């Protein structure tokens, strides 16, 4: 490629690797036996998953009374975790759909992984409403279907909208992910030497043959799916925020919730993608595919969304004072100065202050520092949901019904276990499927596209 060519500055893959080498590098984890590090990591996540299993066993056997939930704090860790994990998922769709529509080529290296995380995060999130109903085997009643009781669900309730939003989100994310995987599975099919692998890859690649007559429709579908996934991802966290905003509890009943929840979701999702990718690029030697430039761009998005979240906090405080509603004013004073002040200030430190460090280019490009900041952001965003849900419920309009919420050991086990569940999926994913899209990466390597000719 000649100098002065405008595609040069768009280069998102470092160096100019041979296409064949990219295939080799990306499919290597699938073709080699997992090493010791993998088994150590897996044993850690499986132990955490074991805590989830025990926690859920206790919950199902003895009932929801094993949790710290009380009256009035009927929604505590269960819903905090649900909102947290749904939020984590949002970064994946943002990267795969919104950045695709904006033609951000740097997304190619991280899109597949982020989409995978979306799916696993929504799996994890989906556990919580289900276990929160207490009798998860009756969860089918959440869906409207003509049943023997002649009952229908309440279509005017945000909780029902949630059922639709989350299940649509999961389905569309899975479809989007699978469509992206088909050509990659076909590459693996061509590379496969063992018979079993060949059969599996042939089955799931459906007979893809890299035909341009197919690529044309495929790209159209990818565009359509991206076009649908973009408003979808915005709608999901908007609807999650309606669970709170449509009620009249002070601290919940605000119109700022939908945009502020979406910004928070993207913020925490990027932090989680950041954390996991830093480890993945190191272990699998993907430093030239998931480049430091890509990480820096992600840090910029975290800076932007983190500042939006900070603006949200400030605006909530202002409006509670400006509205003149005593209960609202009290709720926000209570958050900052009441019994949960430690949670509130953890949230402010992690979410508002720590991402501001990303104004410095040096910090944006320093991998260990951004790793720590991303962990802080995750902690902060979990506490944001905790603060919103628990402080508002524990002290609402009637002081006579106030109560303090303290989590039990089962709550903590389920929280830790949810991370185990998520990371077990992630680990198995890294060994089962290509974590970077080979096709998309090859298409953006320097020299992969025809040089532009004057017509």
């Amino acid at each position, binding site marked *: 490629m000649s100098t002065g060519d405008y595609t040069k500055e768009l280069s998102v893959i470092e160096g100019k690797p041979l296409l064949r080498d990219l295939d080799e590098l990306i499919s290597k984890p699938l073709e080699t036996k997992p090493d010791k590090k993998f088994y150590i990591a897996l044993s850690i996540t499986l132990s955490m998953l074991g805590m989830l299993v025990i926690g859920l066993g206790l919950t199902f056997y003895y009932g929801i009374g094993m949790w710290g939930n009380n009256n009035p704090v009927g929604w505590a860790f269960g819903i905090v975790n649900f909102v947290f994990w749904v939020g984590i998922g949002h970064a994946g769709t943002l990267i795969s759909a919104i950045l695709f529509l904006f033609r951000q080529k740097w997304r190619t290296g991280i899109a597949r992984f982020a989409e995978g995380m979306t799916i696993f995060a929504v799996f994890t999130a989906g556990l919580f409403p289900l276990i929160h109903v207490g009798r998860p085997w009756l969860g089918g009643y959440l869906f409207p279907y003509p049943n023997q009781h002649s009952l229908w669900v309440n279509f005017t309730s945000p909780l029902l909208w949630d059922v639709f939003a989350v299940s*649509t989100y999961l389905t569309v994310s899975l479809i989007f992910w699978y469509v992206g995987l088909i050509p990659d599975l076909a590459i693996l099919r061509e590379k496969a030497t063992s018979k079993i692998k060949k059969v599996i890859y042939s089955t799931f690649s459906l007979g893809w043959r890299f035909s341009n007559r197919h690529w044309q429709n495929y790209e159209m579908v990818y565009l359509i799916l991206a076009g649908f996934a973009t408003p979808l991802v915005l709608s999901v966290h908007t609807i999650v925020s309606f669970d709170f905003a449509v009620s009249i509890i002070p601290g919940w009943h605000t119109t700022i919730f939908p945009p502020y929840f979406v910004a928070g979701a993207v913020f925490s999702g990027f932090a989680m993608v950041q954390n996991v990718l830093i480890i993945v690029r190191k272990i699998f030697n993907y430093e030239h595919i998931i480049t430091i430039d890509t990480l820096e761009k992600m840090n910029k998005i975290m800076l932007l969304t983190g500042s939006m979240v900070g603006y949200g906090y400030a605006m909530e405080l202002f409006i509670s004072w400006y509205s003149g509603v005593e209960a609202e004013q009290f709720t926000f004073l209570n958050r900052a100065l009441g019994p949960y002040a430690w949670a509130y200030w953890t949230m402010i430190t992690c979410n508002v202050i720590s991402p501001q460090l990303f104004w410095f280019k040096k910090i944006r490009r320093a991998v260990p520092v951004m790793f720590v900041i991303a962990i802080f952001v995750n902690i902060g965003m979990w506490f944001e949901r905790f603060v919103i849900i628990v402080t508002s419920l524990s002290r609402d309009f009637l002081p006579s019904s106030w109560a303090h919420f303290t989590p039990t050991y089962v709550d903590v086990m389920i929280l830790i276990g949810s991370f185990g569940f998520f990371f077990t999926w992630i680990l198995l994913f890294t060994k089962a499927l290509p974590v970077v899209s080979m096709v998309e990466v090859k298409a953006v390597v320097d020299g992969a596209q025809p040089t532009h000719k004057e017509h």
Partner: protein
Amino acid sequence: MMSEKILYSLNAIFDTPDEISHAAEKIAEKGYKKFDVHTPYPVHGMDDAMRLAPSKLGYVALIFGLSGTLGALLSLWWVSAIDYPIVIGGKPLFSFPAYIPVMFEVTVLSASIATVLAMLFVFFKFPNNSHPLHGTGYMKKVSSDKYGISIQADDPKFNEEEIRKLFESLHASEIDLIFWDNEELNHKNKILEPKFLLFLLAAAVITSGTAYFSLNKLMFMVPFNWMMEQQKQNAQQKSLIFDDGFGMRQPVAGTVARGYMPYEFKGQPDLAGEKLVNPVPISKESLKIGQQKYDTFCSPCHGYHAEGDSRLRGQYPNPPTLHSDKVRKWSDGRIFAVLTDGQNIMPSYSTQLTVDEKWAVINYVRALQRALNAKESDLQ
């Protein structure tokens, strides 16, 4: 061996994206129709070079998306305003703003699923692992880092020598022929293979077994039965606490339940006819209740019009008509005595009808009597 095979296409491999774009342009220019370009990733500008018509999948998304929106709106309207009309939160039965989130989600869901299914199974006719290009060296190369072009033998302009020359002039790095695989051409799918049948059988046994176990056994085990079997006294259960051993208790002596005043004229129908007065006024509502109860309990023997025309076709003795002078002259209370005590072979209807319902039935019988023996003056 080779000569027996049927030719599928003549293929060429190119090394750079520029060469393949140029080659595709030239081949489309020459008027070949049944040709295809195979690239490891979508190459920019290839659709124009091949002169492909724009993809039609956008229409699929549009049609299924709009039907999703409309379908969601209609079903939400039907469910909440027609089939299950319950006022919640003071909102109207058909509250459109509250339906928007669900309508949106259904739109996205149906459009996405339909578009992908249409692409894979209608446009591409997948799954198709028996295509002649599969399992060839050509496919291995174009899946990785080469760019291929393939002109099918059934193209009307197909001429091996000519195309070979054309490919060479375009600087193809490799040119070769691809044949149909005879084995795959002659392969017939046998449905009734023992392995497949065994698989079906196993699937059926496992599914039905799991369904039976989970619905009929599992749900009755600890802890799933904890809602059903609670530590409390249920109706009809034996009691260990009370001396008489009954779980249910008798009301205090002399208690009268609302609407169940004892009947004072048992065995004295004439006295009842004198003393009892019909408290239920004749109104549209009471006649409607009377008609419903009459049709349910009385009409099987007395007939819909009270003419004693039983529907039981003689399986049970026919009662006399209620249009006789005797019954028409009876007071309401006298009829009430019959409903309460029974008469001849007719049993008491006190367990089926409440007091008010009995009076409503009597009102309805009066209406029937008047209708069947109408006078000129009734028409006014």
